[in-house]
């Protein structure tokens, strides 16, 4: 017994180091699995407050560009309103096509992130605006991510630039669908896999969300095909998609709530 106590006293700094290192390793592993990070996230009162404050200042630097983006969006909406028969722009989200089950909540990004391997974005809407986990987030140009943690006034969004995010997507012209993921190389490009080899893929094709999960409606623009090749087994395409969104310059977002989600979930569970 005496020896054990002596051992602990002699190596106390090493033991403390080991303990704290293992704790942080635990947090790290948790953060690498989807929707698991429990305690350490920025959607809390303190960090949200600090970023809100800094955002009130930094907002002004991007006003011109953001105004232009909003004006472009207004422009597309107006042109649609006055020429009902016009063909839809590819970079445009038509909410009337989603017929009602989707509710949109406008929000603002208060901390953007795109240079890490697992990027998380903080937005200024939270539980008070009825945000919950697994709501989709888009911008006027296209897909952005999925809501993860929420606090009263803030929420974290797992960006598409996150190696743990998986979103179902498809070709616009046919219904061949696959999964979007990110290889952590460039914030401009994401990867689309599991598109069957039979699909007629051409460079420049538009990729949209498939609406197969209850998170995003069908038809949210993702990007265009920049490069594609067959995987090693030659059954599926590996497609590099150029995002419509400039992920380094984001400000206004729309959170999508699928009001039919619980019904869909129940239905799926019953079939299992």
């Amino acid at each position, binding site marked *: 017994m005496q020896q054990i106590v002596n051992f602990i006293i002699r190596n106390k700094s090493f033991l*403390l*180091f080991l303990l*704290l290192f293992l704790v942080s390793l635990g947090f790290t*592993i948790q953060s690498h699995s989807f929707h698991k990070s429990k305690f350490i996230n*920025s959607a809390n009162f303190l*960090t949200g407050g600090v970023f809100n404050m800094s955002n009130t200042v930094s907002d002004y630097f991007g006003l011109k560009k953001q105004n232009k983006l909003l004006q472009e969006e207004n422009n597309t909406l107006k042109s649609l309103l006055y020429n009902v028969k016009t063909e839809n722009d590819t970079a445009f989200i038509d909410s009337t096509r989603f017929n009602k089950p989707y509710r949109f909540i406008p929000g603002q990004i208060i901390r953007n992130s795109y240079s890490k*391997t697992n990027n998380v974005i903080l937005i200024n809407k939270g539980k008070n605006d009825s945000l919950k986990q697994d709501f989709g987030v888009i911008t006027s140009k296209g897909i952005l991510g999925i809501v993860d943690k929420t606090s009263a006034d803030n929420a974290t969004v797992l960006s598409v630039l996150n190696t743990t995010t998986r979103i179902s997507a498809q070709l616009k012209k046919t219904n061949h669908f696959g999964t979007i993921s990110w290889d952590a190389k460039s914030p401009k490009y994401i990867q689309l896999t599991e598109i069957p080899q039979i699909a007629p893929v051409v460079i420049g094709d538009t990729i949209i969300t498939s609406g197969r999960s209850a998170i995003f409606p069908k038809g949210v623009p993702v990007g265009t095909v920049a490069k594609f090749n067959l995987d090693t087994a030659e059954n599926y395409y590996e497609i590099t998609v150029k995002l419509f969104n400039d992920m380094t310059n984001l400000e206004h977002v729309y959170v999508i709530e699928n009001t039919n989600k619980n019904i869909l979930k129940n239905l799926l569970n019953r079939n299992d």
Partner: protein
Amino acid sequence: MTNILSVNTVRFVVLLLLQVLIFSNINFLGYINPHVYILFILLFPVKNNRMTIIFLSFLIGLSIDMFLDTGGINAGASVLIAYIRPAALKFSFGALYDHQSINFNTTELGQNITYISILTVIHHFTYFTLETFNFSKILLILQNTLYSSIFTILLCVLITIIFSRKKKK
């Protein structure tokens, strides 16, 4: 004693805020960010208890993780360099460390740079290993470590030079 306490408290808060509000948003060439907050660990008084610095470095790392949603990456890397700090001190300052009389304001610049570089590179290597969490991407890890380390070392050395209080002769 109160002076050391207040100086380090201020340093803790200021470096934390600087890191999360400015240094983590630089994104030089798209992805290079300095991690200047490790200055808190580097410049912590040498005479103080080893347990204290290990615990405090865990705290500052975890606070940064909370702000930046990085899990426990910063905490892990910080704890590691806090633990091996005595070895780095001994290597770069030699006899001075044996006499427990290091004062970072009076040490030579060359020794300071060696000391900062050793701990920065170790910190960044751990950081990017934990961030990528995939040893098959070792090239990506090493590349990130190299670029960010250069940036961090440069800034750390500059800051220590600017804020060092040389004794008046």
